């Protein structure tokens, strides 16, 4: 009953005229930018974050959340209709595009829309029940536990997003180092500022994010030089009853898988999609058709995608630790608005927490409306040639990074990180863990110093406390496993090379 009461309270805030408007704007703009080739959720959110500065806190966070799942959805639409893969719509390209080739594009879009709606709804129930409970657990965490949890998060994100523990960890550590730039909170010493005044407050999150994701993505598209062929097929949206019946079980399976994987550190939409797709491929009644344009291949992954996008808010709002790069960016947005996400947030700002939860469901309804009946209008975005688009994207990157402090010097930082991001891309290093490291770096340092102060410089405190001990044990096991895997792989590879 308590839950219903809280949700009603949340809807009271989400359904005010202003907040409804902000959610709607967020969803629409997010979908629009998400559709554009090359701009995934990370670039979209950092590009649009400045738009929310002049809006009241609750409304601006609702709008940002709307931008996030709008972008997510826009990705899947461009994946289904034109096989443009973004970081988290790779799975949608498989069966979704196959369905388009078979002339069932409308059905694929309807399936994705409905399944996302189901996935989102399930995830919101999970979010509303689990987040407050997890918040209680988070009060038991001491500084050592926070350190261990963050390291565990780095490891999971590194492994999941880049597939290579070593490269991902390197990126996370570079992020942590970049996070130390600026005035040290404890001693007041200005670190790594090279006596430049505007670096005293540290490097801006948006400057880094726009450089690493926005600029780099644009240059990447320019380098590949591919021209898109806009989708011109017919779209028939309404499914038959037998098709409709096939969507539901698969979408429900995907919702459960997605909700669960969304909570885990390093989890989130990408891994949830792959997991849901794999499960459908194994357990679905129509498993033989999957891979050749089956409804299940679209429904399961779309539901998991949406569910995981919602439940990944749980660690951020309950413990105060973002689990992936998108959530790190969200945390940056919370902090810019003067809200520290964490166990105290639900108690201190109940209208914000429950309002946000309720607005997610409202946003779900908007997306269903935006994407199913109106989808054919969205696709006209692709008639704009990239040669027109990219100078504009670069201009918006400049305005975005400038408007944070009204400081043109920030554009140089963005340009610098654009170059750094390009270099990383060429070296096959994924910058997503860097963003997480950058956000968590100052927290890691603070908690590490505190833990060392309490234990008088004794490292055994990390092992003797049950929570941090367990997490560090898991990290050690994982690293050992990776070493063993590499040992056997290199033996396999090196034999033919020697011959």
């Amino acid at each position: 009953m308590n839950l219903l009461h809280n949700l009603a309270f949340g809807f009271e805030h989400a359904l005010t005229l202003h907040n409804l408007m902000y959610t709607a704007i967020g969803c629409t703009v997010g979908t629009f930018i998400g559709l554009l080739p090359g701009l995934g959720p990370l670039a979209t959110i950092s590009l649009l974050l400045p738009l929310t500065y002049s809006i009241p806190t609750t409304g601006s966070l609702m709008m940002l959340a709307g931008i996030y799942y709008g972008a997510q959805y826009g990705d899947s639409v461009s994946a289904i209709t034109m096989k443009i893969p973004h970081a988290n719509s790779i799975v949608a390209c498989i069966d979704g595009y196959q369905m388009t080739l078979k002339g069932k594009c409308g059905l694929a879009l309807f399936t994705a829309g409905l399944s996302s709606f189901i996935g989102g709804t399930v995830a919101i129930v999970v979010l509303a029940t689990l987040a407050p409970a997890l918040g209680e657990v988070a009060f038991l965490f001491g500084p050592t536990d926070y350190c261990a949890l963050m390291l565990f998060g780095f490891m999971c994100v590194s492994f999941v997003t880049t597939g290579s523990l070593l490269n991902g960890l390197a990126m996370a550590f570079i992020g942590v180092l970049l996070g130390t730039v600026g005035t040290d909170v404890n001693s007041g010493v200005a670190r790594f500022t090279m006596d430049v005044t505007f670096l005293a407050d540290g490097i801006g999150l948006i400057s880094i994010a726009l450089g690493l994701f926005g600029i780099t993505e644009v240059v990447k598209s320019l380098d590949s030089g591919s021209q898109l062929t806009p989708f011109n097929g017919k779209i028939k949206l309404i499914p038959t009853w037998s098709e409709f019946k096939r969507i539901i079980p698969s979408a429900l399976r995907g919702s459960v898988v997605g909700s669960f994987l969304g909570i885990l550190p390093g989890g989130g939409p990408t891994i949830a999609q792959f997991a849901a797709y794999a499960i459908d491929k194994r357990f679905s009644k129509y498993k033989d058709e999957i891979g050749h344009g089956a409804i299940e291949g679209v429904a399961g992954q779309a539901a998991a995608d949406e569910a995981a996008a919602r439940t990944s808010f749980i660690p951020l709002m309950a413990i105060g630790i973002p689990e992936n790069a998108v959530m790190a960016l969200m945390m940056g947005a919370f902090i810019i608005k003067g809200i520290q996400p964490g166990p105290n947030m639900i108690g201190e700002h109940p209208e914000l927490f429950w309002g946000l939860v309720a607005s997610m469901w409202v946003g779900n309804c908007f997306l269903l409306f935006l994407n199913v009946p109106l989808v054919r209008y969205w696709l006209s975005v692709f008639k704009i040639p990239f040669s027109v688009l990219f100078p504009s994207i670069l201009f918006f990157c400049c305005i975005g990074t400038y408007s944070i402090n009204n400081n043109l010097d920030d554009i140089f930082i963005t340009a610098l990180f654009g170059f750094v991001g390009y270099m990383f891309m060429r070296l096959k290093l994924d910058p997503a863990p860097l963003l997480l490291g950058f956000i968590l770096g100052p927290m890691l340092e603070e908690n590490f110093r505190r833990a060392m102060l309490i234990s008088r410089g004794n490292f055994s405190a990390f092992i003797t406390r049950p929570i941090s001990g367990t997490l560090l044990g898991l990290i050690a096991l994982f690293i050992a496993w990776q070493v063993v895997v590499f040992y056997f792989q290199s033996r396999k590879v090196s034999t033919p090379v020697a011959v």
Partner: protein
Amino acid sequence: MNNMNLVRGLVLMAIALIFGLGALNYSIGHFSRAGPGLFPLMVSCLLFLIGLISVVRSRFVAVVPLSYNMKNIALVLLGLCGFALLSQHLNMILGIVFLVFCTSFAGTSYSVVRNLKISAGLIAIAFMFQYGLGLQLPLL
């Protein structure tokens, strides 16, 4: 030298050295009372270690050549920096025109008329930001 895995390790080591040597300028303190230099130094050491492992590992895996194309990134960076400098010293309208004309060399086709149209559109949007959203842009 044209080995991506090797270059990657070296780049990581270089970044670690920049931050690690920088951290030595600040007081390190000791673990129970950490100075401002301790934490960056620790993280740099870990990063250096990862770079070292990458370099060693690159000896054991197949060579992947490093491919790069400096033209597009150079044009984009030049456009961005020119935009910032022109906006700082003259005004943003010139900055926008420079940004569009400079970066569009990186595109597949180049057309002066189209560039003028894009510039005009972006300038209009900039004015909209100024008067609609209340952003302070150095437009004039």
